[in-house]
Structures are given as structure tokens and as C-alpha cells.
């Protein structure tokens, strides 16, 4: 076996060591912590590239591209519970992505967290997170995956709550951990069920793993009491874990709040890697997800995958709709992440591993680019996060502006040159030809329109017009979001960020641009790599079947979205931070202007936007009251039960004990009357008894 396969464990263990050493280091050893974290990630990145090259080499030699290394952990009854790691194309791609993006974000953090007093702790947590995430990626055992998954959740908690003195950060971290943990509960049950059914938790083990034919067939043949096969039940339970981690509807509530953490954390954890872990999980257990009782053909879709598709489609639309009405630069991106994760899920459901994973990879690059750009903006504006107070940054922060634009166009899926276009188009194309329903396609297409719209809105607010930062500077210090950053910077004039922050942006930007060409329909290298099929170059594929119409229509949708965005926000610069949102102020002048040549188009625009605003409000309301309310209600019920139990414990269970004690001591008191301690009393009793006995004896003697 190749060296890299045997020693793949080094990839997660290196950052773990870095985390361990910096945990023991003194608080002042900032350079040590940062260089350890970055150095370990760089080594992990090199190892990942080696692993990737190894898979490529195997592929070019026509060998099996999947290699596993298993070892025994502990004994379960008569069986051994084994753990292990697997190197296959999926692992290789994820490893390279996580280590590369992670390394850049680590470097960026050196600049962003420069003034924080807990710099060392921050890098310790970051390295621990990276280690756990890489563990998730290489795991060849659902149990090992779950273990790393939980540690990922823990580090996410620690990093969201990094500024725990801010009550909102503390609350957000708690919410994140508990919400994801709710999703992990069914996940854990799914694991136990899977183990009970198949007797192993290894994914691949020379034919004996739980994702291999024998086990899958066994799982399909088992039918549960409710009628579907065990495979479906287990797959749906596992998917619940993915829903929690990947912020899918209805467990997405934690993700926007998680933006309370430092921005590099948002970029690394809540955009590029951790939230994608749910998508990765579904991709990893895809054989289980796609298992169904019918004849195995490509035309039928398993129940579990249908669930994945619908949840994904709903989330994609839901996130996009809410993003339209947000004013916090990071919250817009957060809802956009929710929406994009929905796309990935949908892609997995309708198109398979390669389709979903392709979007995951491209999204990781352009969304971390966007988040780091947003961080640079926030850094430059002294901690301001409200887009209404920004503006005019195009000139003031040229590097940030340029790279942010690339990220934004990639996210919108701007035709042909941006990676998001190709990966999103793959998903839409697969959804278009899905055999169950067309609805996910339309939901996805509409979400794409909204994405282009809200991103252009954000661009015009942040970078267009003139700076509105000065006018709000008097109430600046009261803004809670800015509290953590404001005191770090004396100047309030927007300024470009230092090189340590802009260089990672510039390194990410080319990937956001070009990565899409790895997976076009003409040259589907990425798809063939993941699915391990023959790669063919076929420019004709771009024109075949529904490919071209879908591609053209999605291009039109993106342009339309950008156009509407420009129409509403870009035409006239936003003058005042206090002015109401143009979208909310569908003023009469707008309507008179609509009466001109573009009347029909504009009418469409207006109706859609009105509906949209209402829908946004409804969704926002739902988000605030219904889903949040549901969580609160459950909490209150549990608390009520807990108080009841406490009452019972104090007054019933415990007072029973006390009553018992009291009755014992009461009877003791009665008995103690006999022993009053006065000798005269005892003598009296003795004398009395003596007399009685004497009388009795005399009586007997007489007879």
C-alpha cells in the first residue's frame, strides 16, 4: 500500500498537534500559535495535494481509485469495532479544498485578529476545528465521522462564542450547538440502527463495509413496521444530521446568528467547510441514500433522495427570499449560504454526488472570498456591518472591491466565466430532467433570480455612491455589532485592509473565476473524476437535449436579477443611511417611469418585487416567530416539566423520607418518657414490680 494512504491520518493530526501545543502555550506567544497553525495547515495541504496526485496517478494507471486503511479500535461483544480512513476521489477533492481554503483563512486571520487579546486561543481553536473537519473528510467509518463531526460542532461553538462577553455571541453559540445537536440526535440513532442491522460501521472494507453491495442489499430487504425498508429509514435519520449541520430548513435558524463570531470564522466554518460537512455526509453515504427496493435503474429515485431534494429546494428558495430584506452585510451572506447549501442538497438529490459536490467546491471558494471580502469591508469601516451606513467603498478599497465583485458574480452564476455559473447550471439541468417533479427546478431557478438581485443590491449599497459612514459616526459607538472592533481603530475613515488580508482575497479570486471550467458539460473532468468514469471531451454536449435551453434560461435569469437590482438600487446612488430601502418604497415616481417603453417588463418586475417583499416579510416573520417560537415552546415545556420534577422531588419523594424519619423520632420520644433519668422513678418502678412479683409468688405458693 502506498505511503500516503497509510499515513493519511497525518493530515488531520498535524493541525491537532498545533492546537495542542498552542493550548499549552502562554497567552503572549502569538507568533508561535499563528505560525504553528498556518505551518501545520500548509503541511496538511501538501499532503493533501500528494494524496490527490496519488488518486490521479491511480486513475491514469487504470487502477481502483479507492483505497482504505482500517484498524481495530475496541471490542463490541464478539466483534471488533474498527475505524479507518479512506482515500478516494471524494476525499481527495475535499482534502485539497479544506486545507487550501483553511490555510488562506488562517493567514487572513493574522491580520483580522491582530488586535485581539486572545489571539493565541483563537488560533488554537481554528487549528482544532481544521483537524476535526479533516477527520470528517477522511473517515472510513460512520462512527469516526460522527466523532469528528461532534468535535467540529464543539469548535464551531467555541469560535462563534469567541467574543463571549457579547451576550448576543454567547446566545448565538449556544443556539448553534443545541440546534445542530438536535439534528445529531436522529443521526446518532441512525448510526446505532445501521450498526444493529449491518454489524459494521466501516464504509468500505473489501466487500464487508456498510456501503457495499452485500450490506446495502441486506438493508433493502429489511422492512420496518411502517412499510419502508430499513435503508430508507437509516438514510433519512442520517440526513437529519446533515440538515442540522448544513443549516437546512427547518434547522437553519442557527446559521444567521452564527455570524456573531469573528469574520474569518464565518468564512471558514459557516461558509466553506463545516456547513458543507452535511452535504459531504450525504455524498459520503450516497450508496445508502440512493438505495431503494425497486429494480436498480437510474430512472427511479429513492425516498431518501426525494427528501433530500425537497428539503434542498425549499431551503434554496427560502434562504434567497430572506436575504433580500437584510441589512447586515454578513447576514445577507449567511442567508445566501443557507440558500446555496440548499442548492447543493438539491443537486445531490437530483443529480448525484458529482453535481452536488461540484457546487460545494466552487461555493467554498467564492463564498469564502465573499466573507473575507466582507471582513475586509468591516475591518476598513471600523467594525460597521450595516450596509446602509457604508457606500462609496469602490474607490476607497479597490482590491476588496475587485475581488468582491468576482465573488459576487460567481455567486450569482454570471454566465460563462464564473465558476458558480457552471456548478449551478449543472444542478438546474439535473433538476430540469428529474423524473419526479419539475417543481424543484422552478424553485431553484427563482432562487437564482433572487440571488442575483440581492447580491446586486448589496453591491450598490456597499460599494456604490458616496460613503455614508461619517454621518452615522455619532451613534456609532452604540451599535453593538461594532463594539468589538471600534476600539481597535482610531480612525473612522474607510481604508483598504493590510496586505495580509488582501492577498488571500487575491489568491481566492482566480479560483472563484476559473474553477467552473473543471466541470463544464463539454469537458466534465470533475464529474468523471468523482464518479470514476471515462472522461471525454465533447463540445456537442453543450448543445444536446435540454442542456442549451437550461443554460440560456439561467443566464437570462441571472441577467434579469442583476438588471432588477440595478434598476432599483443602482440607478440613483443611495444618499442617506436613514432613507428607506428602495425596494420597500415603491414610490409613485417609480410607477410613472414604469409606464414607459419597458412597461410590460417593468410590470413583471414590480409585481414580482411586491410579492417578493411580502414573501420576504412573511418568511422573516416565520423565521422570527414560528420556527424560533417552536424552539422556545419546546424549551418552555421542558423547563415546565423540569420544575414539576423538582417540585415532586422536594415535596413528595423527599418529604416521604422526612415523614418516615419524623415518625421514627416521635415514637422514640414516646419511648423516652420511660427513661426520664430520675433514679427515684426507676426505683419506684422496681419497687412496684417487686411488690407485684411478690404478690404473685405468694399467691402461687398459697395454692
Amino acid at each position: 500500500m502506498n505511503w500516503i494512504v497509510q499515513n493519511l491520518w497525518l493530515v488531520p493530526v498535524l493541525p491537532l498537534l498545533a492546537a495542542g501545543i498552542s493550548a499549552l502555550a502562554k497567552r503572549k506567544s502569538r507568533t508561535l500559535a499563528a505560525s504553528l497553525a498556518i505551518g501545520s495547515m500548509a503541511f496538511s495541504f501538501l499532503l493533501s495535494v500528494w494524496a490527490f496526485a496519488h488518486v490521479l496517478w491511480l486513475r491514469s494507471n487504470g487502477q481502483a481509485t479507492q483505497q482504505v486503511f482500517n484498524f481495530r479500535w475496541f471490542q463490541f461483544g464478539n466483534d471488533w469495532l474498527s475505524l479507518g480512513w479512506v482515500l478516494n476521489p471524494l476525499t481527495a477533492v475535499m482534502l485539497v479544498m479544506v486545507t487550501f481554503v483553511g490555510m488562506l483563512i488562517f493567514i487572513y486571520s493574522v491580520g483580522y485578529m491582530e488586535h485581539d487579546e486572545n489571539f493565541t486561543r483563537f488560533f488554537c481553536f481554528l487549528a482544532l476545528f481544521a483537524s476535526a473537519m479533516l477527520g470528517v473528510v477522511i473517515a472510513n467509518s460512520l462512527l469516526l465521522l460522527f466523532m469528528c463531526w461532534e468535535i467540529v460542532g464543539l469548535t464551531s461553538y467555541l469560535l462563534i462564542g469567541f467574543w463571549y462577553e457579547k451576550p448576543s455571541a454567547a446566545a448565538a453559540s449556544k443556539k448553534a450547538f443545541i440546534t445542530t445537536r438536535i439534528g445529531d440526535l436522529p443521526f446518532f440513532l441512525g448510526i446505532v440502527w445501521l450498526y444493529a442491522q449491518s454489524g459494521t460501521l466501516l464504509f468500505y472494507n473489501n466487500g464487508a463495509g456498510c456501503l457495499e453491495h452485500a450490506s446495502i442489499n441486506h438493508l433493502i430487504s429489511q422492512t420496518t413496521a411502517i412499510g419502508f425498508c430499513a435503508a430508507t429509514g437509516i438514510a433519512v435519520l442520517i440526513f437529519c444530521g446533515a440538515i442540522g449541520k448544513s443549516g437546512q430548513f427547518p434547522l437553519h435558524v442557527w446559521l444567521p446568528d452564527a455570524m456573531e463570531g469573528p469574520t474569518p470564522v464565518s468564512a471558514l466554518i459557516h461558509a466553506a467547510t463545516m456547513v458543507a460537512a452535511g452535504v459531504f455526509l450525504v455524498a459520503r453515504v450516497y450508496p445508502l441514500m440512493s438505495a431503494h427496493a425497486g429494480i436498480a435503474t437510474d430512472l427511479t429515485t429513492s425516498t431518501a433522495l426525494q427528501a433530500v431534494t425537497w428539503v434542498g429546494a425549499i431551503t434554496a428558495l427560502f434562504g434567497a427570499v430572506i436575504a433580500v430584506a437584510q441589512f447586515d452585510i454578513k447576514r445577507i451572506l449567511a442567508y445566501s449560504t443557507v440558500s446555496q447549501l440548499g442548492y447543493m442538497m438539491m443537486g445531490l438529490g437530483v443529480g448525484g454526488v458529482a453535481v452536488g459536490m461540484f457546487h460545494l467546491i466552487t461555493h467554498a471558494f467564492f463564498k469564502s472570498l465573499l466573507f473575507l471580502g466582507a471582513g475586509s469591508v468591516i475591518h476598513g469601516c471600523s467594525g460597521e456591518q450595516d450596509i446602509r451606513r457604508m457606500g462609496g467603498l469602490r474607490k476607497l478599497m479597490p482590491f476588496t472591491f475587485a475581488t468582491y465583485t468576482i465573488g459576487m458574480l460567481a455567486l450569482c452564476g454570471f454566465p460563462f466565466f464564473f465558476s458558480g455559473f457552471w456548478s449551478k447550471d449543472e444542478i438546474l439541468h439535473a433538476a430540469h430532467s428529474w423524473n419526479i417533479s419539475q417543481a424543484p427546478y422552478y424553485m431553484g431557478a427563482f432562487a437564482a433570480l433572487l440571488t442575483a438581485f440581492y447580491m446586486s443590491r448589496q453591491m450598490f449599497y456597499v460599494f456604490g455612491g458616496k460613503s455614508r459612514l461619517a454621518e452615522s459616526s455619532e451613534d456609532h459607538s452604540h451599535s453593538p455589532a461594532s463594539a468589538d472592533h471600534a476600539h481597535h481603530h482610531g480612525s473612522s475613515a474607510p481604508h483598504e485592509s493590510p496586505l495580509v488580508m488582501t492577498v488571500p482575497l487575491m489568491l481566492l479570486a482566480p479560483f472563484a473565476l476559473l474553477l467552473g471550467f473543471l466541470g463544464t458539460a463539454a469537458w466534465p473532468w470533475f464529474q468523471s473524476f468523482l464518479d470514476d468514469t471515462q472522461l471525454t471531451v465533447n463540445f456537442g454536449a453543450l448543445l444536446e437535449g435540454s442542456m442549451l435551453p437550461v443554460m440560456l434560461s439561467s443566464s437570462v435569469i441571472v441577467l434579469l436579477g442583476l438588471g432588477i437590482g440595478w434598476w432599483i438600487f443602482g440607478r440613483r446612488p443611495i444618499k442617506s443611511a436613514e432613507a428607506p430601502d428602495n425596494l420597500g418604497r415603491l414610490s409613485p415616481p417609480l410607477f410613472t417611469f414604469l409606464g414607459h417603453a419597458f412597461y410590460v417588463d417593468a410590470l413583471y418586475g414590480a409585481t414580482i418585487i411586491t410579492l417578493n417583499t411580502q414573501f420576504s416579510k412573511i418568511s422573516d416573520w416565520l423565521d422570527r416567530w414560528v420556527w424560533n417560537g417552536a424552539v422556545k415552546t419546546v424549551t418552555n415545556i421542558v423547563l415546565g416539566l423540569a420544575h414539576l420534577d423538582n417540585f415532586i422531588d422536594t415535596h413528595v419523594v423527599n418529604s416521604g423520607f422526612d415523614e418516615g424519619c419524623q415518625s421514627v423520632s416521635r415514637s422514640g420520644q414516646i419511648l423516652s418518657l420511660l427513661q426520664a433519668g430520675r433514679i427515684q422513678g426507676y426505683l419506684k418502678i422496681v419497687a412496684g414490680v417487686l411488690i407485684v412479683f411478690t404478690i404473685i409468688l405468694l399467691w402461687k405458693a398459697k395454692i
Partner: protein
Amino acid sequence: MLAWTIYISFLGALALFLLPSRRAAWARILALTTTIITFAITLTAFIQHRTGEMLTVAHYPWIPSLGIQFSLKADGISLTLLLLTGVIGVCGVLFSWNIEDRIKEFFAFYLVLLGAVYGVFLSFDLFLLFVFYEIVVIPKYFLIAIWGSTRREYAAMKLVLYSFIGSAMVLVGLIAAYVAAGSKSTALGDLAGYPFAPHFQMWAFPLVFVGFGILAGLWPFHTWAPTGHVAAPTAASMLLAGVVMKLGAYGCLRVAMTLFPLGLGPWGFHVLGFGSWRDVFALLAVIGILYGALVALVQKDFKFVIGYSSISHMGFILLGLMTLNQIGISGAVVQMVSHGILAGLLFAVVGRLVYSRTHTRDLTALGPMRLGKVIPFAAFTFVVAGMAGMGLPGFSGFVAELMIVIGVWHSYPSLIVFVAIGLVAGVAYIWRSMQMAFFAGTDLDTDPPPPPLPPISFSERLGAGILICASVIVGTFPQLFLNVIHPALNSPLFQGLRKGGW
């Protein structure tokens, strides 16, 4: 050599009593040396006997006319729990370094308690086991009543009464078994091999099981535990939650279940859906898990949170025992070790690191002190211990709960949901108390700076470090322990439970 753990502990106690009274440092060092030697002995024994087979330590006739012997033996289960006792013993002394009041009596009682616990884990004669089991009660009472806090007389008396009720039930069951088997021998091996009549086992089993279960925090007989833990001084609550509660669980497994395996069998009829004592106790265990977690969720006193969390975790042990399969029972033993370590650690944090500095355990009062900033080490230790207890992978709680849950899946699939809810509730109460105790303070410049507290001493760091390492070792290499537990479970002693295979 293992027998010396008992003798050395008792000798150490005697030496402490005889020590000139003013030498506090000597008392500490003597206690620490004694516990370290006993720990070293248990560790050596654990390393030497890798196979986990039955090992005779000492065997002398004691009262031959009644068939009572001084019989000390150890198998894998005992070895594991002896090692746990050794670790907790050392750490308890480390966390009592600051005690000034009547220090030599304190450590003397502490060592008597420790020696008696070693005795229970080593005894393979039921009479001897019972004697040690009773000795445990006495130092417990004095440790709480003299050095305790919060309603200490009440708590000490309650604990003693509950212990004696339990002992009385056990004694009745044991004498009945001894007589029924012909009054020849009190050796556990002889009695466990004797075929008692099924109807006899049907009433003797619940009697003895509940008798031991009281000490293991079996719901609804748990009420001594939270008050007792809270009132006890730190080292005593570490021993109490760490090992004394394990005595109960150990007795359930070692005595009740091996003597009367048929008592676990079906009654032949159903009452309220219960078909056997096994069903009843499994349900009580699950209620304990949920109930303990829920009550812990609304406590105002920090130590009560930990006290009730012990009830919840002990529920896992009892549930694991009731699965009657190898995974579940070995999971229960691993959970005994895990909970021993973690409860010890949690009580150390709350009792020693926090309470002895802040002099309050009220969660709302702790918040404004900003303990997360003032004593970050305490916050860190509590976070780690809490995470480990709630089953974070990499720590001992995870493997133990995983094994128990898989065992339960085989035996009681319908209970699994409640167990899982208990796991989530476990997250909630740890979270709530952590947030309120360590991170609730706001960092406004207008606030007065938090009062300075005495720094964390070296002995405290060392103790916490040892316990965290122990938890990580159990969590990452559970096979170390399973290697000796499995042969023990497959020994003839558990023949009746196995019924030919797990």
C-alpha cells in the same frame, strides 16, 4: 499484592490518628503517599493481569463453622474499578490540600473510606463483602457531618439511613440465600453456582438489587445522593460520586445478578406492560436518566446540578446492566469508570476550584464574578468535564454511552428514544450551568472589576490534569479495559446470566 491496598489504607489511617496534631504538612504528605502507593499497586496489578481471569489475592478460613472465609480475589471488572479507586483516591487528596481544620482526622477518615472501598471491590466472600460495605458508611458520615457545608447533619444522617436500609435489604437477601443453599459457605463462587429455586430468586433478586441500587442512585431511591454530594467536602463528594456510588452498581452486577439470574427472567404474566423485574428496573433506570437531567436543568445551586447529573449518569449504568448482553454490561462497567472520573472532576471544579474561592454556589451570584476571566482554568476544566460527560467523542463518556445504547438497541429498542432525549437534556443542563457560572458576566467598563480570587494551585492543576488524561485514555483506548472486562464476563461466575451465550 492487591490485598495491601486495603492494609496500607488502614495503616495510613492509623498512622494519621497517631500523628502529633500540629503537623498539617505531614498529614498531607502521609495521606498523599498512602494513596499513591495504593494507586501504584492497582496499576501494577492491572498491567500484570492482562487476561482478566480470576486472580486469588488472599484466602484464609475465618469462621470455619459458618463457612466464612477471608477471601480476596480480583477479576477484570474488579481490576478496572480498583484502578479507578486508586486514581480518584490520589486526586481527592490533591484537591483537599487546602484543608486546615482537623486535617489529620479528615485524612484518616478519608483513608478508612478508601480502604473499605478497596475491600468491597476485592471481596469474593459475601460476608466479608458485607462487612466492608458497612465500614464504608461510617467514615462517610463523619466526613460529611464534620467537614461538610449546607445542611450537613441532615445530609449525613439521610445518607447513613438510606445506606443502612439498603444494607438491611441486602443482608436479608444474602442470609436467605445462605440458608437456602444449605448454610455451608458464604463464598460468592459457591453460592452463585447453587441452583436456587426460581420462585425464591423471584423475590430475592429485587430485594438485593434494590438494596445495592439505593447506593447506585436508583430512581426513586436516589434522594440521598444530591443532598449528600452537596453537603460533603470536595474530596468526600469526589469519592462519594466517583467510587461509592459505583459500589452499589458493582453490587448489583457482582452479587444480585450473579446469585439470582433467574430473578431477571419473565414472571409469566404481565402487569402494566411489565413482564419481569428486568423490565421494571430498565424503566426505572431510564426514568432516572431523564429525571436527573431535567431536575439538573433548573437547579440554582451549582453543586446540585452535578449531584443530579450523577443520578442521570448512574441511570445509564443500571440500564446497561439490564440489557443483559455483553455490549451493554461491558458498557455499564466502562460507564462506571467514566462517571467515576468525570463526576470526581466536576465535583472538584465546583467544590474546590469555585466554591472554596467564591464561597457561594448560587449560579446567579456566580455570574457577575466573571469566573471565566478570573479563574479561566476552572472554566476550562468544567467545559472539558462537561463535554466529556455529555458524550463528546474522544472522552470516556462517549464510548460508554455508545456501548450502552447499542446494548439497549438489542434489548429494549423502544426505550432508545428516551435515552437519546436524555443525552440531549444532558447537553442542556451542562450548557446552562456553564453559561451561568462562568460566562454570564458582561464586560462593560462601567462595572467594577471582579474581585480577585486566590490563584489555582499546582496540586489542583495536577489533579485536574490527571483526571482529564484518564478520561481521554478511556475514551481513546477503551480496549485496554475491555480486554480484561470481557474475560471476566465470560467467566463461570456469570454463567447464569449468559445462558449459553450473550
